[in-house]
């Protein structure tokens, strides 16, 4: 019982991180029809920015908020530098995709030059021994990750379903031409999507940095798993990304416990392959191949 509970909590915490990154993948993909390869690296950038602020004496919670704001600005600059110049270049999506791939490599190299190869770590947001819940120990940082993710999922729902801005963003994603005719500033909406997704990545990075050593390549493996999560979820909407991420996280946690130790990383991709074979539309999506 305790083991199941622990593995579940751990899986959900890891899954929450995957979900936040997967959300970034899916929202950008839906909005501008491009898979943003640098999405994983945003977690690295966010965590390093937070680390810099924190090591200069700024309290961790303020550093968190400030980093998220900085990440938003970073995301806006990112879409100006990486997405826009190629947006209207021919009808092909490839230049943009290669551009994001290049950006990913650029960020990794740049941060390696700035911060060096030594692994770093951030302090937990709430330190201390695990909280006891009816005899079951709850690790604090896992809890913090899950609570943060829930809040962000809630925010996501509120933003997209209840606010005018969110509806505009959704409308732009669904049909940019019509949205433009309705008087929506499509470029601004796309820019905002990038800002939002970059900030999400940044938060994910700051949440996981206390648990995982922070290196400049940390974005790659988390990015890949989040991509798998997005596919499992259907690559079509927020709900799919969230559930897909949690699903992958929990599967990983249990598979490592039940004897797949060295194949732990592989388990996410085994799930991905099984989904591609037996349920290519993912958990929620339309069938990937026929999506309009």
């Amino acid at each position, binding site marked *: 019982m305790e083991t199941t509970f622990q593995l579940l909590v751990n899986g959900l915490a890891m899954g929450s991180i995957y979900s936040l990154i997967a959300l970034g993948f899916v929202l950008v993909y839906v909005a501008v029809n491009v898979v943003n390869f640098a999405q994983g690296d945003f977690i690295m950038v966010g965590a390093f920015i937070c680390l810099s602020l924190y090591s200069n004496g700024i309290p961790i919670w303020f550093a968190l908020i400030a980093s998220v704001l900085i990440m938003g600005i970073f995301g806006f600059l990112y879409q100006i530098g990486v997405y826009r110049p190629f947006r209207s270049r021919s009808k092909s999506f490839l230049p943009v995709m290669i551009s994001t791939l290049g950006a990913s490599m650029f960020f990794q190299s740049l941060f390696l030059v700035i911060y060096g190869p030594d692994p770093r*770590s951030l302090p937990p947001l709430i330190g201390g021994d695990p909280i006891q819940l009816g005899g079951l120990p709850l*690790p604090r940082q896992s809890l913090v990750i899950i609570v943060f993710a829930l809040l962000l999922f809630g925010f996501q729902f509120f933003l997209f379903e209840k606010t005018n801005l969110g509806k505009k963003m959704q409308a732009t994603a669904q049909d940019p031409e019509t949205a433009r005719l309705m008087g929506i500033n499509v470029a601004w909406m796309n820019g905002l999507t990038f800002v939002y997704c970059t900030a999400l990545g940044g938060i994910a990075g700051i949440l996981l940095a*206390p648990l995982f050593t922070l290196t400049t390549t*940390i974005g790659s493996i988390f990015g*890949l798993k989040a991509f798998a999560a997005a596919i499992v979820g259907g690559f079509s909407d927020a709900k799919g990304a969230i559930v897909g991420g949690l699903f992958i996280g929990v599967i990983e946690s249990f598979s490592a416990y039940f004897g797949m130790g060295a194949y732990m990383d592989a388990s996410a991709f085994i799930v991905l392959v099984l989904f591609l074979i037996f349920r290519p539309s993912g958990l929620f999506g339309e069938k990937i191949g026929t999506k309009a």
Partner: protein
Amino acid sequence: MKKSILGITMAIIVFMLVLTACGGSQPSSGGTSSKGNDSGKQAGQSGGDSAQSGGTVKIGALGDLSGKSALSGKFKKMGIDLALEEINAAGGILGKKLEVVFQDTQGTQQGAVGAFQKLVSDKDIVAVIGSIRSTNVQATDSFAKKAGIPVAIGGTNVGLTTKLGDKWYFRFRPHDGYAAKSIAEFSAKKLGYKKIAIIYDSDAFGSGGKDLLLQNYKEMGIEPVAVESYNTGNKDFTPFLQKFADKGAEAVNTYMTNSEDAGQMVNQIHEKGFKYQLIGSPSLAQEVTLKISGDNLNGVYSVNDFAADQSDATIAFVKKFKAKYNETPDVYTAWVYDALHVFAKVINEKKSTKPDDIRDGILAIKNYDGAEGNYTFDANGDGLHSYSIVKVEGGKIVTVH
């Protein structure tokens, strides 16, 4: 349209995966057997006066005074120079001055072989201080056999003395097999743990260490409660940690290649509130893990073959070294310091520089208190047979055993 986007995306993902896999990760510290290289830039000579062979006894030394491992080479030379100074101050060898001839390896294997050949082709050189790198030691094996003079080595790969069958190799550091033995004996005998779990890196170093650990525990009649492997660079250790707790492990032995991984695991143990004692391979207690884990590392044990406070002889050595160079000696310095002293002692006792006499003398050494440890040579030519145990206390690494 979108179909092809995802298709191409997948292709790129696969491509990136392959790239990542090839990139691999380099073990940082505490990893495998032989760390540094030796050095010796100028094929110069150090200590002693001019090369009048009538007035001096010559010992050769491989060193990496240039190339990528020049820093470790510098430390090696400092260790040798210190011993040389002491030996000559105490009257030299057989009434003559001792002289050490350095040859540079440029930090490469080819360089090491070339330098070694140069040294042994000098008929006045009676013994050589070789490399700390296992690969270099392996590469110079045939030349050492041909030359037939004693060579001190520092590589810790087990096979260097047991498999090569080179009767001229004498090892001045404990080999990797003793690390596993020290971990197992300290865990089960000294600390008295019966329920022990093992976590190891799936690479050659980790799985080799795991096999040695299991062998040691088998001899003690202990069956580890869980044995788990992970891949270098693994991020989430929680499932393994949970399994250890479920199996009732009181202690966990780590055989991890990278200190980064070890530090990460220690942080996760702390975060999840698991209570077992950690006892591990050298990667566990290092500056790198201290940096990652900070206070979380307090209380862990790890094996180590050189710690500045491990014995009175070491403390004395460190003091002299600091007085001369104003720097703290490290693993590259102590064994060569001992090797030169042992050569001088044996030659003086045997009153001969004949290779066979030196060999007999070294093999007869028992309980020689050196800076690197207490030497008793066995038939294979291994001088040291245990690692020290260090413990992390208050953010510092201290020797406890």
